[in-house]
């Protein structure tokens, strides 16, 4: 499905005062970069898209996904995946358990296990399904986090400065991995970062917030 993510005057306000307002189009298969200094409201924009605006703030405007305004949907019905700076793998589940959580319910157990295994081998982590996530290295965790979100078949992908904790070599590796997968699946992707190298590697339109 080649849907684009369009933000129409998406405004975050505290009371009557608008904090940030943005309009953009993130085309399918493209990585759109949102840049700005700290405090410019980048993360609030992402929160508005996922439907998790913190108390005290509220969002107005439209969020169109494939022409549908999902701003009125509760967060869990929007099917928008997100990757954060921390991998945030659920500590009480195994690696395979984390991955399976995103799979839609239904299907036989062997089928689901098969999909998990395939996802793991896609990123070179075969055989780690039963492992405790706390025992993985930083790079391995980032790869599991990526496959977790992709297995849930999102309609769009949000990246909230996801490469910040990785050292420089790993950084470019994981970055390419994430971008390639997002492009291969034709997902509209919105990257929030303050690192110009990330924006360059993304290769898509760059929008700057003041």
């Amino acid at each position, binding site marked *: 499905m080649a849907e684009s993510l369009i933000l129409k005057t998406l405004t975050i306000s505290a009371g009557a005062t608008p904090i940030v307002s943005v309009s953009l189009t993130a085309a399918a298969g493209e990585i759109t970069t949102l840049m700005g200094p700290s405090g410019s409201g980048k993360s609030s924009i992402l929160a508005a898209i996922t439907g998790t605006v913190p108390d005290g703030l509220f969002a107005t405007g439209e969020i169109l996904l494939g022409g549908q305004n999902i701003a009125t949907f509760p967060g869990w019905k*929007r099917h928008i*995946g997100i990757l954060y700076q921390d991998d945030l793998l659920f500590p009480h589940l195994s690696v395979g358990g984390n991955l399976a959580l995103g799979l839609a319910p239904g299907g036989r157990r062997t089928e689901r296990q098969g999909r998990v295994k395939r996802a793991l081998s896609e990123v070179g982590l075969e055989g780690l399904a039963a492992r405790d*996530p706390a025992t993985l290295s930083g790079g391995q965790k980032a790869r599991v986090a990526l496959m977790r979100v992709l297995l849930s078949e999102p309609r769009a992908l949000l990246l909230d400065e996801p490469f910040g904790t990785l050292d420089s070599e790993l950084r470019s590796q994981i970055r390419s991995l994430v971008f390639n997968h997002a492009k291969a699946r034709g997902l509209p992707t919105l990257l929030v970062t303050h690192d110009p190298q990330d924006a360059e590697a993304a290769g898509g339109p760059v929008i700057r917030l003041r």
Partner: protein
Amino acid sequence: MTLSPSHLFFWLTVLILGGPVLAGLTGVVAGAMGHVPGLQNAIPAGDVWGAVWSWPGIGRSVTLSFWTGLLAALISLASATLIMAGWSGTLSFARARHWLAPFLAVPHAAAAFGIAVLIAPSGWIARALSPWLSGWERPPDLLILGDPLGLAMVLGLIVKELPFLLLMMIAALPQAKAATSMALVTALGYGCARGWLLAVFPGIYRQIRLPVYAVLAYSMSAVDAALILGPTTPPPIAIVILRWAADPDLSLRALASAGALVQLGLVLVALVLWRLGEIAVAQLGRSLAESGQRGSGRAAEIAAATLAATSGIFLFGGFAVLALWSVAGAWHFPAFLPETLSFRVWASHGAALVETGAATLLLAFAVVALALALALGSLEAKPHRCLLTALVYLPLIVPQVTFLPGLQAASLKIGLGSGALPVGLMHLVFVLPYLLLVLADPFNALDPRYRTIAAGLGLSPARQFWRLRLPLLLTPIAGAVAVGMAVSIGQYLPTLLAGGGRLPTLTTEALALAAGGDRRVIGAYGLAQAAAALAPFALALALPRRVWRNRQGMLHG
């Protein structure tokens, strides 16, 4: 706003926290105006209050309750603060939770029994010193238990309140940014203890203010410690109220209601006084901070260790003596150990103990299960936080003796009868606040990004609760269950009033048998009480370790 299950749970919680107290207070106010249920004619309110103030020793009873309550709360808080300062807040929550758990689990009555057999003139301490040091061949005629100043009772209260406040303080450390503050002040050259007091304590106190108020209210109105250790000529006012409520002269029940209001008034006055004290201490702290005196750490460390050790000795020493008495055959003064051993008491009471213990634990478990559902549901609803915070302490600050009799009358009127159901509901009123208190912080500390990620993965809020939040909270939930069960097991007044005598628990049986004075029986029941309350704590420590044995992220979380 759709009415999801969690909202239902939230409003039910609000109802359970606020409703009974209100209903009880209404009954008590009516009673104080002379309307006693069951008495044909109402008594003029003037007569009621006149009788209250002319009751022999009422003035002393009131002042006794007032000052012992304040003293117990003050010493508990000061000691807990000193322990924290002396160890400079290096206590980690996880470790502290382990060794504080036994202190918290033990019901008040059991702790009071232990202290009684320890400090009495014929108690273990006296026996340890006799006759080689003290020269006593017979127990000295010293007024220790039931001393007119109520000091024995204060000791009984401190032994339980100190660990409670300590745990509250330790739990408040992260939010008070203890680690960074300590690093700052030690870099400025302050000794550890003084630095802690000046930099960390104010932040901590802000968070533990309500628990401190609850401790103050409890100290002034507790019945268990007063019955076992308190003075009897005259007794504290809570006991006087109980006596009025139980007198065969039915018109004295109006006095009991009036007394209940006096008790409430005392608590309110004490709270105001305490608040003024807070302001004064804050002022003192500020001038101390501005004076720039650095202080050293040694003295505070020693004081902390001494306080902690003394508290432990009184609690566990008491239990050691109770255990000895329960297996004592002949044990005359001044022998330190029993002369012969006998399992007569265990043999004759064993079956009853097991039966009563099972009933006590079953009731506790049912109450806690219901309270857990309500608490988790309320937290899920992300409700009006101020409402919940205010209400959560309501049943803990309004003295039990103030609203329980009115509540009992109401429950009989609506046909609840007597037995397990009304007792369980009454226990719920006291267990629910503790569960909310224990679970609120861990619940709110869950990384909110988990919720976002899960929502992004397509999990509905219900699925998020069952598959994410619940398992992630397993350790705090286990701890909360243990605390809740300990609270239920230790309840005396609610079980007595609502049970109609048909639901004997270990606590009510222990206090009934205590009047008979046979220390061997008291020892057996005291131990049984403590064991019943400790068992869930042992499980709460063991269970998460077992479940998360392959999940390091959960074990060190």
